[in-house]
């Protein structure tokens, strides 16, 4: 009797659990989850085709000239226009707005492949996509999009992002550039530092304090066309790496812009900046991946050819260990980057993952570039081989769009928060 009851109860419990499971599966966006996991293993066809196009472009159009562009500190005008024609300067802008309409995973793949050819070009591409177009897409009015988005999609014009100042980088809330509202104009005063695309851009997203008493809640975002009266550019910085990009100060001296150049609402600036940088991190992670992969490719190619002690040095364990370490670092950083991109595409929180991706990828880039020079020996130290350029290009990825130190703080605070501790 007891056994029969137990059996009956067991069957009831089993069918109850089964119904629970089925209803849970119906609620879960099953297809999306499945697609996400398999994307990590095999890219969807569109993404694979995109990767091939970008790789071919990078190998044919960027690799042959990257060294020269770096030596001459020359902006890759032609190449940027070609990127625009391919749709690579507006990857995740929806088709309805004139963009390419792909997702962030596609964008990450594209930036990596382009950066593998030329890190400077990858940087220019990333700034236009993530830092300039993105906030305008999200917070711009129809008129602002018409003026500041549409002409910036195909390479005719590119934009820049002005948050950092001589007095504050990581401490973005301490912005001292001010914006005062007169009858119908905003008057900007102050200086922005380290602005990539400073010289070639036709517009800038600028962050300025509109209400000092509110501290970081008193910062607002503005769209500033270039050139504009009252805006002058500082000298081009003489950088260690990514020398084909221009980096300079933007100096605002009673610079007046129309009232409708305010992006979003007053006081929204800090939020806009942080959200923009969150996604921008994925772009920079992708750029760092490109540099890391290029370094690895360079080292492997050299190791199979260079003879020492009667055999290619690829046979030596000392070299194999370095290659293995490089491979693990770039591949793990890549998976973190893809995951962050896919979370963003799924409209889920991705701040922690983006910070992890940027941290891992930038440190992979510097590690790989450093190891590549070691594998190449003396040849790694001269400009005949690209290893020294990768070494110089890699270094900035640990600094801009959030230093590695800031990334670590972001990651840690998210870890604690997820476990319920509000520090």
């Amino acid at each position, binding site marked *: 009797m007891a056994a029969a009851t137990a059996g009956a109860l067991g069957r009831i419990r089993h069918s109850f659990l089964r119904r629970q499971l089925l209803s849970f599966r119906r609620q879960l966006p099953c297809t999306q989850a499945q697609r996400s996991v398999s994307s990590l293993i095999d890219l969807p*066809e*569109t993404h694979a*085709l995109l990767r091939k*196009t970008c790789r071919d*472009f990078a190998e044919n159009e960027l690799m042959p000239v990257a060294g020269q562009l770096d030596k001459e500190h020359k902006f890759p005008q032609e190449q940027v226009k070609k990127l625009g024609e*391919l*749709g690579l300067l507006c990857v995740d802008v929806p*088709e309805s707005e004139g963009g390419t*309409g792909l997702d962030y995973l596609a964008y990450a793949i594209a930036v990596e492949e382009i950066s593998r050819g030329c890190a400077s070009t990858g940087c220019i591409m990333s700034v236009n996509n993530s830092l300039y177009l993105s906030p305008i897409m999200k917070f711009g009015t129809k008129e602002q999009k018409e003026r500041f988005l549409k002409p910036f999609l195909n390479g005719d014009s590119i934009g820049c992002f002005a948050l950092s100042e001589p007095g504050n980088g990581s401490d973005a809330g301490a912005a001292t550039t001010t914006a005062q509202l007169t009858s119908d104009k905003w008057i900007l005063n102050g200086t922005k530092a380290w602005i990539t695309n400073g010289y070639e851009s036709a517009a800038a997203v600028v962050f300025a304090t509109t209400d000092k008493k509110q501290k970081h809640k008193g910062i607002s975002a503005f769209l500033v066309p270039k050139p504009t009266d009252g805006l002058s550019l500082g000298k081009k910085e003489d950088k260690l790496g990514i020398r084909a990009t221009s980096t300079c100060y933007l100096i605002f001296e009673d610079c007046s812009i129309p009232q409708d150049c305010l992006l979003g609402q007053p006081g929204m600036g800090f939020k806009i900046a942080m959200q923009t940088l969150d996604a921008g991190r994925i772009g920079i992670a992708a750029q760092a991946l490109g540099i890391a992969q290029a370094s690895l490719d360079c080292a492997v190619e050299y190791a199979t050819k260079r003879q020492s002690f009667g055999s290619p040095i690829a046979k030596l364990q000392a070299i194999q260990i370095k290659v293995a370490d490089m491979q693990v670092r770039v591949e793990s950083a890549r998976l973190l980057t893809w995951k962050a991109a896919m979370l963003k595409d799924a409209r889920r929180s991705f701040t922690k993952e983006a910070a992890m991706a940027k941290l891992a990828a930038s440190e992979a880039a510097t590690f790989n570039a450093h190891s590549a020079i070691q594998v190449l020996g003396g040849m790694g130290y001269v400009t005949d081989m690209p290893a020294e350029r990768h070494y110089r290009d890699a270094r900035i990825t640990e600094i801009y769009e959030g230093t590695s130190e800031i990334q670590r703080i972001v990651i840690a605070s998210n870890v604690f928060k997820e476990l319920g501790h509000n520090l």
Partner: protein
Amino acid sequence: MSGIRVLVGCKRVIDYAVKIRVKPDKSGVVTDGVKHSMNPFDEIAVEEAVRLKEKKIVSEIVAVSCGPTQCQEVLRTAMAMGADRAIHVEVDPATYDHLQPLHVAKILSKVAQEEKVDLVLTGKQAIDDDANQTGQMIAALLDWPQATFASKVEKTNGELKVLREIDGGLETIKVRLPAVLTTDLRLNQPRYATLPNIMKAKKKPLVKKTPADYGVDVTPRQKVLKVEDPPVRQAGAKLASVEELVAKLRDAGLIPT
């Protein structure tokens, strides 16, 4: 007159940049896990078809590839460049190893007839076997005129004026449509597939068929006996004078004494 319909033959080959390795049993080359892409001359053929379409001379482009499942990547690339439709004639990997130009020519001829095309465009040769036969065989099977090694194509009334690169230099011929054209290196520079076109390619139709669907027997008529690396290049010798050179040539029996 409505536009010309074009069939483009695309072969999936080992990528030109890859270092080829012969299999240890000398039965062929290593293809597993090796990077493959569209035969560069076929890319030029696709590009030419797309350019003709942009000039409104061509109304529809059908890309065809014969081989294992992975050939679909090549067809997607063709569609991303601008082909309208694709046909994948599926051949299993074992059979594909022995698939010869005559088989492919028979298949493509049948496809050309079924699709009622006016022009067959294909690369002059594939970079894996360098056969340089398929285009010519298609023309013979269909009894169509052929213009091979094309480096320039112009449309005149109902005819194509083609500049050919031949051993003696450049030759211009006219062929009446329908015709078969094979492309040479200097015909054009293939475009990169733009992102919007890659997106559009996803929606274009790709149909799977088999050689049997076209009544083609793919039993091999040739057998590959051995595949080897080319002999290692021997070092040359520097000679002091022309007299020494002539003496050496005479000793080797290469010139009459």
